[in-house]
């Protein structure tokens, strides 16, 4: 915060004044050249972009994606429609189903409720980025072993939520799994198997493959 700096410089606001100066003009200005340069840097950082397309660089699964996007494009659309990374699914596009879940810096978020430009400079992991050298992760393998899917549309989202949970809490209880996965919906209703897969992946408990529901829902 800059309580000390004047909000207005003559008829101009600080921003419009600085914007109207070129870098050279600032550098040669007699008054506090250093402060002004620092200011200019800040104003540039605050520069208004859009509504047209702007360059956006996303670090997805360790690779840099260079895109041209309007500020209104969500991360989910950037992945699916501008980069062919269709592993993250679009269900509701309103933050209510979890199909679009990705990790940003190891934390699960809804990519449909995040603007792509705001995901720059962070490590984004989609379901495509989990398996290394063709080898599935423990969580992915557990979903397979437990047959924890029917149509599979919700699966990438659940895999991301369970993966994030186990990174934060390697030995979850059933309540922990429910709390962590409550933001993912499965229309086919494979919840008991997803629970089993989460436990298998965490190695917490030996869970038998059951034909019927065994998870006690309090």
């Amino acid at each position, binding site marked *: *915060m800059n309580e000390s700096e004047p909000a207005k410089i003559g008829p101009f606001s600080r921003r419009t004044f600085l914007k109207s100066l070129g870098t050279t003009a600032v550098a040669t200005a007699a008054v506090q050249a250093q402060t002004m340069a620092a200011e200019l840097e800040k104003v540039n950082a605050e520069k208004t972009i859009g509504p047209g397309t702007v360059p956006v660089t996303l670090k997805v699964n360790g690779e840099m994606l260079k895109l041209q996007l309007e500020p209104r494009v969500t991360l989910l659309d950037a992945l699916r429609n501008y980069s062919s990374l269709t592993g993250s699914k679009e269900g509701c596009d*309103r*933050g209510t189903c979890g199909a679009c879940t990705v990790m940003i810096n190891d934390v*699960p*978020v809804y990519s449909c*409720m995040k*603007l792509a430009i705001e995901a720059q400079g962070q490590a984004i992991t989609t379901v495509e980025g989990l398996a290394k050298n063709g080898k599935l992760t423990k969580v992915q393998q557990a979903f397979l072993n437990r047959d924890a899917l029917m149509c599979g549309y919700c699966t990438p989202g659940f895999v991301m939520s369970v993966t994030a949970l186990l990174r934060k809490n390697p030995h979850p209880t059933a309540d922990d799994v429910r*709390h962590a996965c409550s933001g993912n919906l499965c229309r086919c209703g494979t919840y008991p198997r997803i629970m089993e897969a989460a436990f298998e992946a965490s190695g917490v408990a030996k869970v038998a493959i059951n034909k019927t529901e065994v998870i006690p829902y309090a």
Partner: protein
Amino acid sequence: MKAFEYATAHSVNSAQEMVADNGQYIAGGNDLLGLLKEYIVDPKILVSVKSLPGLDRVETGSKVWTIGTNVTVAQIEDHSAIRKTFPGLAQAAAEVGSQQIRNVATVGGNISQHSRCWYFRHRDVLCLKKEGDMCYARHGENKYHSLFTGNTCISPVVSNLAIAFAALDATAVVQRAGKPVRMSMAEFYAKAFENPTAHNSLNPGDLVLKVEIPTTRTHSAYMQTSEKHEFDWALVSCAAAANITNGKLSNARVALGSISPVPHQVDAANEYLEGKTLDEATVTHAADMILHGAKPHEHNGYKVPMAHALIRRTLLKLNA
């Protein structure tokens, strides 16, 4: 979504300057993107407040704790010191949406979020809140609506954090016209009680900086009832906070959410609780006082006994 300009503010002054008359702040974006996708708001520019310096921290203190506007709901849920000192706040945070939402949702965005009334959220319905000429909920589907209001709109406050903050007597610090203004939670929402077009008392350009919580009350609790066990809005929520010495309450405060456009608080009930022992008779009487004058609509009468039970349970939970 319509196209918009975008900028990241690095100082409070420039945030307010850039947002001007036709812009909107964006923090986590959970609420705002929903409104944009339904064409309910139409800002020329979104100004991100996430890079404002110093507003993403929880600062502890002997008298007051400060929570910056950009602290996330997940940070509050997981903060071990908050869980110990203000358990009611941590419990309220843990019930916000889902893990994915809590990870990005901010404190400022949570208390400033807009109405969840389904008529308001429908892109084709122009109700009073959107400066149309009638409230559709009053004669329509009002299952999720208020029992109290001071105007025609019956859309309730749904922010979980606001309810916990109200019980803890927290103060929001808001930058307005070049100066920080301090508002109790009652003041932060007062305008929504009077004015059908308001969601809270913020004027255009007002920027929430932080929330301050006094350490006065040593006990706090939050409970809500929803249709689903997890990841659902509260049908009714309740927070309570107090000191308990030798089994006697002092400084007690109770606040309810989802039954009024403001966190519903009744001063007389708080005063009644002073010096009382927490028992079934006390909490029942307090609940009667708090719900006195409730005006249910066609579909939300169930909220009265639900709120009554929640007040009793939440107060008794203070003893736990």
